[in-house]
């Protein structure tokens, strides 16, 4: 028995999707009880799919005039695409596979005719090329918004920051019902399930992300579009699909339609993924085809075949000059327009705390693809997608929220997973938070801590506290105290230790803000001034930069 090529394709899709999911779930430091090792690194190459992504490579090359670590691997996808066409979209892309799966529910019996018509090539399928043009020009002008639409950015951001945390929440709620049951056997089942899910799926702690709900809703909407039009995302919006479509123009593998056998039944259109017109009487759109091979299989007359060096006229990417120019103009205008507001240069948001290793804002915004890998991996759930803190162009870039989680002293996982070098890879030693940071060493600083004495217990309420000092990770500590005599409400003289901050030693990790017992609005908080990545966002004349 011969294995059907479409079966092979489904196998490939499932394999790559599971690989993607596995790597996503392992974009988390799970701790090892049997390893010590002073440096903590992730055991799996969790950024693999980004490194294979030619769009990320292109964006990175345009932003940095170089290729960051590992992005050369994207040639593994790019070069075969030049010869074979968009096999990546049909066989590998995990987001494509999600769309493929959700598109496959449309019933042939009920909607066969409609299905065939909806799978003919449509002019709106060129939208993705114009989006690609806008994004590429924007990245040349200095902002990496291509990541809003890049399929892996979209998938990691949506699943990692919304769907996976939601799944965690749901499973934990269900497990809690079992584990708190009044019946011992149910409790046991709950315990066993908890253990199994814990090793496979659940995060160590329930993760939460700002904007998680919106990221999830957008994702569900994009997936739901498949119920109307098969793989609408891939056909109309995906900029990676567009890029691969363009480079497949000279592909040597093509669809050959033998007109003498075709009886115009149009069955080839029934399960067509790309909307590339495999049917008789019209030219085939090479750059739209995902090579899913459904048409070859469906054809009752066996009149469709993929052949190398076919002698047949095909249509490549067919763009309108006027729209291309509009796209170029839109991309070029975008960045100057958003930067005409003061946020980027003149009035940076005080709480825009970037992760350690992040480049200066100008370089950061052009390299960051808003994928959320850094947020997914952060062990303290400290990194969150921005909404307006970094301006409109900075939507979904990472920001540290110390109240939710501080930056762990010797952790550099976000810099390890960043696929583009927006967070440049650093070592714990380069981060430099465990030694005397005021001396010759130049630690990475995220910002500076400030006290709100009106809310601080020893300053305002004659009460002992200094938990901030206890948690301060530098040595000598950036937070010091003086014993002071205060008078409490009853008129008694009392001695308390009042905290102060030494800005020369503060690295802005946010541990003090996180640990402050004033739960809603902490009495000590971090703002971005003094961040070592910036030359201008500084306070002190003599504070060394990293």
């Amino acid at each position, binding site marked *: 028995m011969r294995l059907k090529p479409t079966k092979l394709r489904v196998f490939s899709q499932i394999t790559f999707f599971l690989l993607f999911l596995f790597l996503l779930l392992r974009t988390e*430091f799970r701790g090892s009880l049997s390893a010590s090792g002073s440096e903590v690194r992730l055991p799996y190459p969790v950024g693999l799919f980004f490194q294979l992504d030619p769009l990320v490579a292109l964006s990175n090359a345009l932003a940095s005039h170089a290729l960051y670590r590992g992005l050369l691997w994207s040639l593994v996808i790019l070069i075969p695409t030049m010869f074979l066409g968009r096999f990546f979209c049909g066989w590998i892309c995990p987001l494509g596979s999600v769309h493929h799966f959700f598109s496959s529910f449309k019933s042939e019996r009920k909607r066969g005719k409609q299905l065939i018509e909806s799978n003919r090539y449509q002019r709106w399928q060129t939208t993705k090329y114009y989006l690609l043009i806008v994004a590429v020009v924007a990245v040349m002008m200095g902002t990496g918004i291509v990541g809003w639409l890049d399929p892996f950015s979209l998938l990691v951001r949506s699943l990692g920051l919304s769907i996976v945390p939601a799944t965690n929440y749901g499973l934990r709620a269900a497990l809690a019902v079992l584990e708190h049951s009044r019946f011992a056997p149910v409790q046991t089942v709950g315990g066993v399930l908890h253990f199994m899910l814990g090793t496979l799926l659940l995060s*160590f702690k329930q993760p939460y992300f700002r904007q998680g709900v919106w990221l999830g809703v957008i994702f569900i909407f994009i997936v739901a579009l498949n119920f109307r039009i098969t793989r609408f995302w891939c056909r109309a919006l995906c900029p990676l699909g567009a890029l691969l479509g363009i480079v497949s123009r000279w592909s040597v593998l093509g669809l050959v339609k033998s007109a003498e056998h075709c009886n115009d039944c149009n069955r080839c259109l029934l399960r067509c993924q790309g909307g590339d017109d495999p049917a008789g009487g019209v030219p085939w759109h090479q750059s739209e085809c995902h090579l899913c091979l459904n048409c070859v299989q469906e054809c009752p007359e066996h009149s469709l075949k993929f052949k190398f060096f076919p002698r047949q006229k095909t249509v490549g990417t067919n763009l309108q000059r006027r729209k291309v120019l509009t796209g170029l103009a839109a991309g070029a205008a975008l960045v100057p327009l958003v930067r005409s507001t003061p946020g980027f240069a003149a009035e940076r948001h005080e709480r825009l705390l970037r992760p350690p290793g992040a480049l200066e804002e100008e370089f950061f915004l052009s390299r960051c693809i808003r994928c959320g890998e850094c947020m997914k991996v952060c062990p303290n759930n400290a990194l969150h997608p921005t909404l307006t803190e970094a301006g409109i162009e900075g939507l979904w870039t990472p920001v540290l929220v110390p109240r939710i989680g501080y930056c762990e002293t010797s*952790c550099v996982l976000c810099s390890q997973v960043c696929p583009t070098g927006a967070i440049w890879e650093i070592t714990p030693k380069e981060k430099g938070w465990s030694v005397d940071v005021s001396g010759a060493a130049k630690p990475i600083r995220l910002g500076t801590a400030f006290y709100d004495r009106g809310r601080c217990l020893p300053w305002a309420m004659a009460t002992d506290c*200094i938990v901030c000092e206890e948690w301060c990770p530098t040595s*000598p*500590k950036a937070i010091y105290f003086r014993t002071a005599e205060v008078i409490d409400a009853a008129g008694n003289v009392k001695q308390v230790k009042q905290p102060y901050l030494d800005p020369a030693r503060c690295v802005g990790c946010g541990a003090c803000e996180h640990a402050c017992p004033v739960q809603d609005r902490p009495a000590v908080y971090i703002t971005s001034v003094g961040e070592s990545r910036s030359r201008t966002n500084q306070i002190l004349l003599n504070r060394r930069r990293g």
Partner: protein
Amino acid sequence: MGTDNTALSRREALLKLLRVAGAGAGAAGLGIWLSEHSWRPEAALAMAAKHGHTVVADPNLPEMAIIQGGEPTQLARQAVEELGGMRRFVSRGDVVLVKPNIGWDRTPEQAANTNPEVVAEIVRQCLNAGAKRVIVTDVSCNDARRCFQRSGIAEAAKLAGADVILPDPSRFKEVDLQGEVLHAWPVFDPFLNVDKVINIPIAKHHGLTGTTLGMKNWYGMLGGQRNQLHQKIHESLVDLADFVRPTLTIIDCYRILLRNGPTGGNLEDVLLKNTLVAGTDPVALDAYVAKAYWNMDVDALPYLKMAANRGLGTYQFEKVRTSVKKLS
């Protein structure tokens, strides 16, 4: 008479009325029942789980052993031997909880966490004495996964045969600590329902109290808003020590953290002392180590007297039976 096609037959109309009336009655019944069960939601009642873990005192054996001048494993072995051997503390079939300090994301050389070799040796001794299960755990301050791994304690304890349990946030139980300032608090559940508890803190500097020793280590069984405890630190230390009443306390002074505690980080803050102080009187142990390494008198640490008043031990460490041993 012809049938009226626009209306239901009497039979059908009656049935329809019955259905509607049934649904209405059901809704009314359910509503009345629910309205009788309305009360303001209360947090789950804290469970009473307080029980001591001490063993009977033996007048022929020392209450405190100070072992100096050896490597961590030797020191731990000798300390337990001086106190009468682990069989005095652990009986066959016991479940033992060993509580090191695994609070911070630091390596052993930085002396912010208990020495892993001391922990491993105590685990081995418990198992040799016939313990059914030895649990090693702590509720860390920094990210627990990093603390457990980088302190070296998880690896060492696991190799020695212990169950190393990470503080899973879903495993805390609301417990009534029955203290003077501490009442209902979430406690990590492995700390409940064990037969014996062995406390292995490390001696460190601490900003608020000057030093953190044995009793302060019990913060590490709590979840919740632990950062409030500093407001009444002495009272809460005593409440926790009273709640646990450990079988044995071993203060790790192999390396001590002299400054910038309890987090440390800088190797210049660490002093090698090659010492272990073990015993059954947690108050005397804290008093001795505070005096020996920080030159702090009893009056500088008010919790010592409070603990003595609560019957947890004596702060006059000079008066307890002490065995001092120097290993070569």
